[in-house]
């Protein structure tokens, strides 16, 4: 282990003995971070589950007002971005710089597409006066107070998810910059791999959010 250590080895931080150790540390660090993220979102999921079970009909009525086709398109967009991210990781491993750049760029574009669609959805909620606490006016079925609670949880969950998307896009842009400066080699590509873990995680959160917020019980209200 120690004999592979040379002070000049590219990309090796001073306090690590070997590239292998550094890569392990980075990967484990990201997994540990993702566990904290699960716990962070977990509080929101708990609040959602509690109030969904307390007020199923009001939540279903509120849920049916969400634009599920847009949510569905966004789900497809994110699943595709996970694929392009995985391809970017693969091409960084085998050292194909141009393909790496291409797939990172597509990932960024897909991420932006998601955010733009999300912004349209948010704007619709604004025009429909469904901003909880500030501009809320519910005429449909169900108790307006409970419906407002649904939208409050909806905005908290999707808002925090969107924030993660924005951070992810920022990370992708940094990766593109680094890749364009030839920073990655087949020996040193762990930043791409670790960022990929983060990106997949953010996608998976959406995979849970979409059915919980858009689909479950929505048919009952019609």
């Amino acid at each position, binding site marked *: 282990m120690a004999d592979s250590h040379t002070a000049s080895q590219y990309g090796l931080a*001073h306090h690590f003995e070997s590239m292998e150790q550094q890569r392990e540390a980075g990967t*484990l*660090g990201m997994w540990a971070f993702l566990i904290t993220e699960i716990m962070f979102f977990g509080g929101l999921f708990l609040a959602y589950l509690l109030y969904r079970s307390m007020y199923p009909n009001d939540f279903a009525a509120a849920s049916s007002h969400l634009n599920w086709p847009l949510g569905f398109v966004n789900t497809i967009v994110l699943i595709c971005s996970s694929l392009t991210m995985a391809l970017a990781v693969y091409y960084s491993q085998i050292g194909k710089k141009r393909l790496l750049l291409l797939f990172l760029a597509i990932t960024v574009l897909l991420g932006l597409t998601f955010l733009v669609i999300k912004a349209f959805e948010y704007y619709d909620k604004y025009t429909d006066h469904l901003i909880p606490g500030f501009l809320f006016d519910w005429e449909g079925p169900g108790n307006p107070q409970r419906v407002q609670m649904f939208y409050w949880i909806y905005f908290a969950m999707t808002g925090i998810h969107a924030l993660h998307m924005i951070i992810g896009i920022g990370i992708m842009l940094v990766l593109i910059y680094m890749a364009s400066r030839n920073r990655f080699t087949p020996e040193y590509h762990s930043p791409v791999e670790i960022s990929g873990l983060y990106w997949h995680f953010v996608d998976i959160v959406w995979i849970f959010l979409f059915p919980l917020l858009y689909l479950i019980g929505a048919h009952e209200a019609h």
Partner: protein
Amino acid sequence: MGTEALEIAPPRTHYINVAYGVKSWLLTVDHKRIALLYLASVTLFFFLGGAFAVGIRLELLTPQGDFVQAESYNRLFTMHGIVMVFFFLIPAIPATLGNFLVPLMIGAKDLAFPKLNLLSWYVYTIGALLTVVAIIMGGVDTGWTFYTPFSTNYSNGNVLLVGIGVFITGFSSILTGLNFIVTIHTMRAPGMTWFRLPLFIWSHYATSMIFILGTPVIAITVLLLALERIAHVGIFDPQLGGDPVLFQHLFWFYSHPAVYIMVLPAMGVISELVANMSRKNIFGYKFVAFASIAIAVFGFLVWGHHLFVSTQSIYAGMIFSILSYAVAIPSAVKTFNWTATLYRGSISYNTPMLYAFGFIGFFIIGGMTGLFLAALGVDVHVHDTYFVVAHFHYIMVGGTIMGYLGGLHYWWPKITGRMYPEGWARFAALVVFVGFNLTFFPQFLLGYMGMPRRYYAYPDEFQVLNVMSTAGASILGVGYLIPMIYLIWSMRYGPHAPANPWGAFGLEWMTSSPPPTENFPETPVVTWEAYEFRPYEETEVVGGSGVEEADIPEPGPRTRH
């Protein structure tokens, strides 16, 4: 320990004198320097939180409200709790001693993510500054628990600002925990297997598990609280269909394990002290190691014992009660094993060991009274009384701060390269012991007689015990000020410390005092078990080049000086 008899030349360059100037400290990525930054910060907040405690005890000197009235008193105990819990007790041992020692003890050059480590200090500082601003603007009156709907709808304190401060500071804990876990997994020196790790490392591993599993939950809880206070949608407001008990569940899901964040690192310190100061291998190493993990795991399953008088179902209460009893098992394993380690040990009654003895005694009292509180029926009687206050102070102050001070004295020679004055230190340890008991033991009696917590006034018959408690608090305050003074004094005037002044076991004693920036001249290779005390002749000497004769490590301690 006649260390003054030895003339020790300190190493020429070490981590403290390797660079000078404010910038070299504020931009450092050396875990040892960051530990000192944390040490300064948490000490500051300790004395800030202590100042609020002075206000509380002064008011409680007399039955009526004469020093402050209800409104100010609410703010005093709230700020005391928030400052002490979030800005002192939680980071106290992990971020200072842990930060300093984790890489040293496992033979690493640094933590796995040095820049994240520095970031964690800045995050802590930003959160702390926001809280200080909130204090200056009038503080908060919700109690440190921020219970809803009072905190969201009715409190006129700076709930939002303090909430943001706590939210931000939480991320410094997450970064520290993440760093420790990755470091312990990936940075151990060759030969340093899991079961050769010092128990300090095991307890910090368990603590880090709580950091990364629990802290995000308080983050989202405080965020929901802040959003609710802004928007008033009613997620925690029963008038609007929300459930305030949801807040209590979320809050205690973190805040009960947080108690173990505070006490587990102290247990790690005590394990080191007991083994090294009685010069024996710890009794039942694996049991003590796994007890740390068990406490961390059980700690996540007992939060409901804070909700016995809420709307939580009686069946949930019974389960939480039984699980709370279960925590006593690993805690008792540790206590019994420390005691068994002392048996026929060659015990040094020096300052760190005095604190260790204090810890064990206080922890037994605090832990046993915890069992009273875990019992459903008894808890209904003493819920929200001074019995609870006394119980958790026996753990937090009697446990954590005793461990913290014991550890600080024990590793002070390593941290600063200087010895502290032993006579003064023993005297201070005695003052702390007496002052602590006088402060908090009467509170058990007060609580059992029915004095509720968080009131500025009380019936006359409680006055004698309250006067005793206030008198004890003033003694305790002196006990904390003395180390503050002589430790600062010793940084400049204390005698130089040898590499291993205690003849102790552990990699941190095999490098010079203070250590060089990269910790070891060359990566150590570990060929011995933890606390493998044996005659000096049999031990292997590692380190080698670059270490001066006086600093040659003593893996196995020989004779006592």
